[in-house]
């Protein structure tokens, strides 16, 4: 929001000083901006005010003189007089705190919140000092496990309603509520029920007392022992800002940072608790090479020598084209840049593919005008055609949920019902291929979609944003490329976001870690993608570098992958032990999250800083260092080996990154990072110092980066030149043409069903498996079919059925009935217990299976 849009202010008198407030804002916010902190418990800037804790009572003038009013609930009005420091207010605060402490145990010395507790802190600052209550306090059974991750100590609860409001309003998972009445009031799940939300950790983060605690953190650390590094979550490509807190070189927890443009302080549980894996014994910590049939731990020198000799012998024997790099989307930008430089310059191979999902390809991403998240949420209409956002980019679901309440219009294109369906004004139950073909050749589906978009954004799609991503993981990426291309052609004024969800996949694209591209969005000759590389590796000798990926778990056509790995010389560069590591000839341990600094790029193209909290575990090394050492092993110059220096080289060499400096990203001026290329300016909201409100996210050590943007505080530095403002406009990439085969939408005869593969948040990965508590949530594989289909195959809801692929592969999997699915489709939900990806054959337009009852 620019200053021009800000409506005229309202004038109120705060403790005798006239201040300007935004119309409609609560007193507590106006006061806070003016520098007066009013104590509070239930008020949270990202949630609806309820005024239940009474801590924020202030004196407000009214028709009958001054009276005590909750400042979080009462909106400012012209001429209002507010007193926050009178005897009467002080007495109210005393009373409220004494009352809250009547039943609150004084177990602070053993409470996890002790030391960062809003109740503790505000009692000290505003409390009466003594209690008149001498009776027995409440006792409850403790702790109660309300989910696998969250524990509840009810006697500590002060009924502020933050967790219940979060679950209900923000996450739309109202699985907890207040039960009972009076002093028996407790936060409760349904008896035998569970707070089964992907976002449950946020309730722990916002609890103003120690009532809700996270099992992975409980009794692990004291707040005053914690140090903090600001960082970005890499569980998906949304890039939520968060603080990595650590103690004695051990990561102890992640806390969400309130970034106005990305995550509003929320994290998903997968991101929040993924640190559990960092200290597990499933970490790869030593370089290993294969001697005869055994893997032996060796020094880095010996491992590097082995890698070097492999590269030299493959180059000499089969040409550089026999060396391929798969993965890397989990690496830092600096690591990716170094590896791409190694592959494409030092070694001379073009075979590099970071997107094992085969999502929307870089050629489409670069050619489409990209929206920022802020633009997408303020769009006239947002068309979502991707896999379930809550499963792929979880916190984006929270942002969309919030935006829809504020008036965003969403049109969804999805064959299956998703978390977005209830938010959308309409769901078109069409496959991506159907829509792509319809847009190319016209027809009723295209007309209908056209009319829906035109209703808000006109024929050209001005102000419309499309969120496009792979919705069926059995499809080839060409389907999504053609959908994106056809969409961009039909709505030339629309903007796009892409839902490829691997952590730094957009950084990987920008840095040329995808087929057909060089660093800096520079096109080169087309080359093979991951599927084609694997197909080649099954036939001819190849040297495969696996950069933090397990193709066995992540690529379709498992049998082919297995023979490719068998047939190739494999170098695994990973932090976690995976099935693919069993095929390795060399294993190089790479520093895991929080163990090295660098930057990452999110789905908007936003580059943010990754903070280093602890030293790499065991012998592991940062990704960029490993690339540099391999280069040195080959007798090439290794280039810079510190992340700041690598980023400096990137911004010097690549126009895409021109003007980007590590120091800027680390400064208060760009707390939310910068969107590349910087010519778009945009994006960054300037510094919003916010020294107040340690209550919104207790435990955050440096909360000055937090909080909603404050356009009212005037963009003081707006006159200052943005970094990169003078950089030349980068040339527009031409949108390629894609042909889609009608086979992609053909209906199979002979009772075969089209396979539609979707993923869930807790999909089995090496990192999830290494997290002791989080891994209990690992999704189980299952299929869903229409009730009539289930009946037709003679199976019952929840029984095991046999899926038979076109090439004879058989998979046993549990089948469930789902009314929302059409006939002729089987939705396979990927997970543990059955490998549904093996039914897919690389290079087919659509996958069909037969279902037989077992």
């Amino acid at each position, binding site marked *: 929001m620019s200053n021009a849009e800000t409506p005229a202010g309202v004038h109120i008198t705060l403790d005798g000083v006239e201040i300007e407030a935004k119309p409609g804002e609560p007193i507590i916010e106006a006061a806070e901006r003016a520098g007066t902190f009013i104590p509070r418990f239930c008020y949270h800037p990202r949630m609806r005010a309820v005024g239940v804790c009474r801590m924020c009572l202030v004196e407000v003038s009214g028709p009958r003189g001054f009276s005590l009013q909750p400042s979080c609930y009462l909106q400012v009005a012209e001429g209002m007089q507010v007193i926050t420091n009178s005897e009467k207010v002080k007495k109210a605060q005393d009373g409220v705190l004494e009352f809250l402490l009547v039943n609150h145990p004084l177990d602070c010395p053993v409470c996890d919140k002790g030391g960062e507790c809003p109740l503790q802190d505000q009692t000290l600052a505003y409390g009466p000092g003594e209690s008149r209550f001498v009776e027995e306090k409440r006792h409850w059974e403790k702790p109660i496990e309300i989910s696998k991750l969250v524990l509840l100590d009810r006697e500590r609860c002060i009924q502020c309603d933050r967790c219940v409001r979060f679950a209900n309003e923000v996450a739309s998972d109202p699985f907890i*509520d207040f039960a009972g*009445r009076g002093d028996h009031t407790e936060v409760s799940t349904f008896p035998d029920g569970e707070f089964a939300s992907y976002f449950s950790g946020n309730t722990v983060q916002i609890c103003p007392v120690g009532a809700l605690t996270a099992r992975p953190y409980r009794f692990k650390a004291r707040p005053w022992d914690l140090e903090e590094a600001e960082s970005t979550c890499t569980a998906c490509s949304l890039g939520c800002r968060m603080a990595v807190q650590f103690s004695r070189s051990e990561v102890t927890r992640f806390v969400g940072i309130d970034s106005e443009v990305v995550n509003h302080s929320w994290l998903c549980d997968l991101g929040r608790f993924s640190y559990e894996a960092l200290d597990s014994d499933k970490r790869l910590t030593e370089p290993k090479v294969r001697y005869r049939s055994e893997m032996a731990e060796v020094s880095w020198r010996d491992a590097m020598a082995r890698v070097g000799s492999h590269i030299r012998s493959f180059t000499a024997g089969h040409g550089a084209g026999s060396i391929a790099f798969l993965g890397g989307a989990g690496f830092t930008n600096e690591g990716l840049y170094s590896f791409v430089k190694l592959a494409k310059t030092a070694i001379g191979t073009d075979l590099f593919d970071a997107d094992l999902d085969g999502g929307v390809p870089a050629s489409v991403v670069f050619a489409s005008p990209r929206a920022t998240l802020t633009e997408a949420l303020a769009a006239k209409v947002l068309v979502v055609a991707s896999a379930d956002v809550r499963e792929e980019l979880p916190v984006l679901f929270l942002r969309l949920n919030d935006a829809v309440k504020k008036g965003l219009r969403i049109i969804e294109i999805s064959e299956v019902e998703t978390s977005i369906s209830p938010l959308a004004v309409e769901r078109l139950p069409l496959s991506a291929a159907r829509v792509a073909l319809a847009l190319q050749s016209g027809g009723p589906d295209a007309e209908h979609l056209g009319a829906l978009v035109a209703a808000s954004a006109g024929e050209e799609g001005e102000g419309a944003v499309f969120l496009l991503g792979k919705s069926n993981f059995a499809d080839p990426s060409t389907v999504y490329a053609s959908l994106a291309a056809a969409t961009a052609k039909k709505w030339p004024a629309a903007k796009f976001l892409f839902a490829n969800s691997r952590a730094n996949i957009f950084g990987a694209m920008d840095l040329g870690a995808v087929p057909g591209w060089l660093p800096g969005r520079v096109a080169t000759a087309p080359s093979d993608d991951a599927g084609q590389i694997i197909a080649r590796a099954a036939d001819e000798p190849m040297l495969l570098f696996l950069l933090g990926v397990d193709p066995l778990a992540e690529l379709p056509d498992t049998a082919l992958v297995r023979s490719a790995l068998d047939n190739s010389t494999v170098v695994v560069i990973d932090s976690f032990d995976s099935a693919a590591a069993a095929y390795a000839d060399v294993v190089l341990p790479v520093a895991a999250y929080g163990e090295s600094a660098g930057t990452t790029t999110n789905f908007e193209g936003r580059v943010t800083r990754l903070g280093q909290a602890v030293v790499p575990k065991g012998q592991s090394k940062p990704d960029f260092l490993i690339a540099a050492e391999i280069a040195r092993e080959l007798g090439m110059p290794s280039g810079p080996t510190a992340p700041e220096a690598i980023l400096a080289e990137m911004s010097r060499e690549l126009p895409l990154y021109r003007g980007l400096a590590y120091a800027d990203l680390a400064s208060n001026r760009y707390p939310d990072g910068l969107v590349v290329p910087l010519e778009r300016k945009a994006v960054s909201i300037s510094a919003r110092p916010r020294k107040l409100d340690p209550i919104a996210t207790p435990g955050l050590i440096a909360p000055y980066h937090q909080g909603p943007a404050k356009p009212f505080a005037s963009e003081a530095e707006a006159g200052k030149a943005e970094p990169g403002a003078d950089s030349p406009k980068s040339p527009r990439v031409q949108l390629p043409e894609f042909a889609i085969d009608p086979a992609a939408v053909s209906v199979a005869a002979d009772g075969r069903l089209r396979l539609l593969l979707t993923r869930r948040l807790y999909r089995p990965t090496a990192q999830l498996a290494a997290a002791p508590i989080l891994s209990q949530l690992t999704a189980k594989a299952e299929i869903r079919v229409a009730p009539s289909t289930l009946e037709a195959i003679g199976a019952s809801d929840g029984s095991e059925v046999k899926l038979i692929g076109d090439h004879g592969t058989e998979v046993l999997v549990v089948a469930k009935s789902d009314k929302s699915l059409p006939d002729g489709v089987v939705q396979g939900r990927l997970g543990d217990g059955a490998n549904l990806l093996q039914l897919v054959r690389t290079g087919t337009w659509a996958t069909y299976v037969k279902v037989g009852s077992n």
Partner: protein
Amino acid sequence: MGAFSPEMRERAESLVALYPERRSALIPLCHLAQEEAGYLTQPFMEEIAELTGTTPAEVYGTASFYDMLHTEPVGKYLVGVCTNIACLLQGGGELLEHAEQALGVAAGGTTDDEMFTLEEVECVAHCDKAPAVQVNYRFFGPLTGESFDNLIAKLRAGEYDGVVPPHGTLVRVRRENGIEVPLEEVFAERREMDRAKAERKAAAEAAKAKEGN
């Protein structure tokens, strides 16, 4: 599938249809469930959540808030002894103590034969008959230990069957929520109540006359 019988399910659906917001039917549906099962079992709460577009946790939250909604098993007769000021002065406390001994359960408990659940209640607006007792929201009083035992014996013997319906039966609630209750049913209940009232009055008068003699 559901906890409601088909007939009750139909009533429940028509009840939901009465409100612009589905969730407004939550409390009436809880009463409906109690009428069918005596208390709110988990399957009922789950079905109510489904009917009202809420989650079981929200239904449980609401149900646990209100005294007239029970999430634990309740005997056929819910016996509430008032211990608020008027009744207390007239011996409500002693009556509750007596009731606990007579029924063999503490306040809040249910007898082993699942006939009686004993509760200590706040004022039931029957102060003129203090100490007052309510059985399934039908009022009795003033009661002594002896007349309490008498009442229990009669309830046990089925002598009040027409007057005190089993716990959960709330004809009026249903009517006020627009559910059609056959008029004969209402009148029959009213007649039965009137008859019992007249009987009690006659008995009281007879006792008075006897005393007078």
